[in-house]
């Protein structure tokens, strides 16, 4: 058995070395998955009968499915029965009491990223009552949102408070049996965010998981649902630039977006899960299904992502362009360093007439990392006048990394206009010497070139996020050259 799969078990075993746990109200479940575990998760959350039934069906479907093998990824077999499917939040006694007890290396990184002091404690998992700021900030936000009629809460809360909305939209974009990981998530999802923007409302602020109370510990099987009613607008920020550690090695999240007539959803992600050490040991495996449904005419869904973390990334944020004149966008920067592997891209499914999509993908590989872009543009027979533009650029740093591009196009309407441009470039020794001759250090030169390469994507991010993302890239590529 390879060291990496021992590692998954290592995590699991360490967590459960104290033996079988009985009190499901406060403790984690023992490893393993069966119908009883699914029932227990649902019970733990006081879910209604229909949702339990929904989870059970997903579980049964999952049992019949096979883990996909088509991605350009290599990792040891995941032992699903070695994983615990419900982890209670860490109790305050188990958390560091103050920043003094936190790994100084982590603090150093926060410093480099310019994370404000009052955020650091929360990110480092310091006991909640020690983190007054973010809690109070979140509360004021809640009031403001309530005034606008916006619902923004945890998924579990939504199930209890707004069951009719959850029932209507859950699984309507990503069906339970969509793919292996989606089925798994549907059976055992832990928590996540729920957002509902009523008709005609422009959400008065950027919504961020950052400000959602209890956002911690929902990482492993996260489930997010955002519904934008007719003529509404919302910008949603997921994740943060600070490196996130998690004892759960396998992550399988689902994000579903629904945009009705004339609605717009802008979804930005900065993902920085622990990538493992230089030898790739201990990193997160991130298998995500993100899909937006432009259900209404003139609707728009825009994905922007900056991905620097995880040992394995399997992720294809997609758009179903059903509504006439609807627009899908995908802007992505993915960085892989050391032994990281990423197979990522997007799918744009043009169903309605005059639908348009734009794909801008920027991949940066350094060290011995491997990265693949996988994009599908499908123009359905009824999608007259559909247009797509794809720009797919790879930047290589050093000679031991790789970039691969797999563009798939399925065009079933003669009026479609589909353009694809791809480039691969390297940061050359001559470029670095040129910069150094102008007094710029090698590290700064690499950052300058990388940031220049990603400019098109960064400009799609909300302002402060863009600045953070830039700093994040610099930190992620530290030591990539020389």
């Amino acid at each position, binding site marked *: 058995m390879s060291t990496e799969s021992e590692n998954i078990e290592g995590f699991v075993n360490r967590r459960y070395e104290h033996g079988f746990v009985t009190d499901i109200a406060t403790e984690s479940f023992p490893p393993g998955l069966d119908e009883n575990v699914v029932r227990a998760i649902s019970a733990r959350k006081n879910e209604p009968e229909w949702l339990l039934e929904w989870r059970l069906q997903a579980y049964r479907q999952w049992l019949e499915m096979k883990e996909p093998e088509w991605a350009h990824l290599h990792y040891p077999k995941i032992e699903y029965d070695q994983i615990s499917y419900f982890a209670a939040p860490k109790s305050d006694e188990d958390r560091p009491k103050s920043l003094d007890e936190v790994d100084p290396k982590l603090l150093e990184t926060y410093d480099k990223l310019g994370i404000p002091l009052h955020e650091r404690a929360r990110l480092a998992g310091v006991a909640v009552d020690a983190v007054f700021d973010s809690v109070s900030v979140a509360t004021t936000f809640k009031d403001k949102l309530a005034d606008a009629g916006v619902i923004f809460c945890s998924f579990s809360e939504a199930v209890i408070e707004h069951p009719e909305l959850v029932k209507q939209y859950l699984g309507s974009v990503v069906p339970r049996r969509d793919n292996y990981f989606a089925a798994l998530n549907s059976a055992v999802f832990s928590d996540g965010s729920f957002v509902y923007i009523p008709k005609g409302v422009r959400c008065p602020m950027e919504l961020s998981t950052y400000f959602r109370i209890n956002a911690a510990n929902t990482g492993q099987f996260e489930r997010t649902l955002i519904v934008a009613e007719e003529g509404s607008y919302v910008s949603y920020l997921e994740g943060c630039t600070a490196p996130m550690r998690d004892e759960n090695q396998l992550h399988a999240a689902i994000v579903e977006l629904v945009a009705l007539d004339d609605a717009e959803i802008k979804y930005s992600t900065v993902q920085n899960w622990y990538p493992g050490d230089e030898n790739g040991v201990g990193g997160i495996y991130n298998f995500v299904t993100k899909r937006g449904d432009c259900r209404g005419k003139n609707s728009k869904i825009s994905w922007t992502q900056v991905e620097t973390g995880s040992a394995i990334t399997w992720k294809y944020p997609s758009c179903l362009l059903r509504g006439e004149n609807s627009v899908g966008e995908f802007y992505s920067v993915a960085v892989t360093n050391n032994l990281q592997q990423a197979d990522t891209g997007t799918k744009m499914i043009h169903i309605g007439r005059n639908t348009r999509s734009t794909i801008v993908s920027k991949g940066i590989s350094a060290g011995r990392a491997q990265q693949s872009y996988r994009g599908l543009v499908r123009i359905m027979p009824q999608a007259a006048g559909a247009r797509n533009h794809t720009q797919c650029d790879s930047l290589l740093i050093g000679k031991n990394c790789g970039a691969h591009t797999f563009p798939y196009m399925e065009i079933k309407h003669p009026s479609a206009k589909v353009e694809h441009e791809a480039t691969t470039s390297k940061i050359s020794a001559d470029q670095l010497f*040129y910069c150094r001759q102008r007094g710029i250090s090698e590290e700064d030169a690499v950052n300058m070139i990388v940031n*220049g390469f990603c400019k098109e994507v960064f400009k799609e991010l909300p302002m402060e996020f863009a600045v953070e993302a830039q700093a994040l890239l610099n930190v992620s590529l530290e030591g990539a050259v020389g």
Partner: protein
Amino acid sequence: MLEIKNLKSRIGDSEILRGLSLSVNAGEVHAIMGPNGSGKSTLAQVVAGHEDYEVTGGSVTFKGQDLLQLEPEERARNGIFLGFQYPVEIPGVNNAYLLKAALNAKRKHQGIDEIDAFEFLKLAKEKMAMLGMDPKFLNRGVNEGFSGGEKKRNEILQMAMLEPELAILDETDSGLDIDALKAVAQGVNSLRGPDRAIILVTHYQRLLDYIEPDFVHVLSQGQIIKSGDKMLAHELEEKGYDWVREAANG
């Protein structure tokens, strides 16, 4: 200011500089001429600190300091500027951004605050006007899609902004039209002063019509085989290099 003694350098297996000596004082302009492949660019790259060139002997000091111990960026911040024979393109990186980063790296080294955006823009536009460059070049990628002559002008712009104590210009005059040549000469002459030195690598007398050198050296097979004043350049133009080589060998 710059003292090169018996410098030997090679790239891969071939020895290119074979015991080269050159002394440049503040206030002087030196021209280095010589046949293709004689080692002129190599000399420039070694002084600038290019890692592909291995120094196998001799010494180089700059302002009394052992230059060979310093990283390329340290040499630059200490006042050495190299105008490249083939300036590299850096797509996506804004020309103004690079200029500003270079300027600030130097200012930081000197203990001066970073230049503010307004002051920077003013300075850059002033220098560009002097060089007859359109300000729109500030917003293009570094040398990205520049014509040969535009690249060379851009090198001079960087030099004019950084005001180095020692500027080495490697064939900055090659490929320039007559107006560009005058503009470059104007840039170089405005830098001239008692505290600065300039080394011009060139094949042509015509640059030296605009920038009058104090010394002219002939480099051949990795050594300086003859030095003289500006008259030497005229002589070379007339007679070629063979007579110098013969004289040196004979």
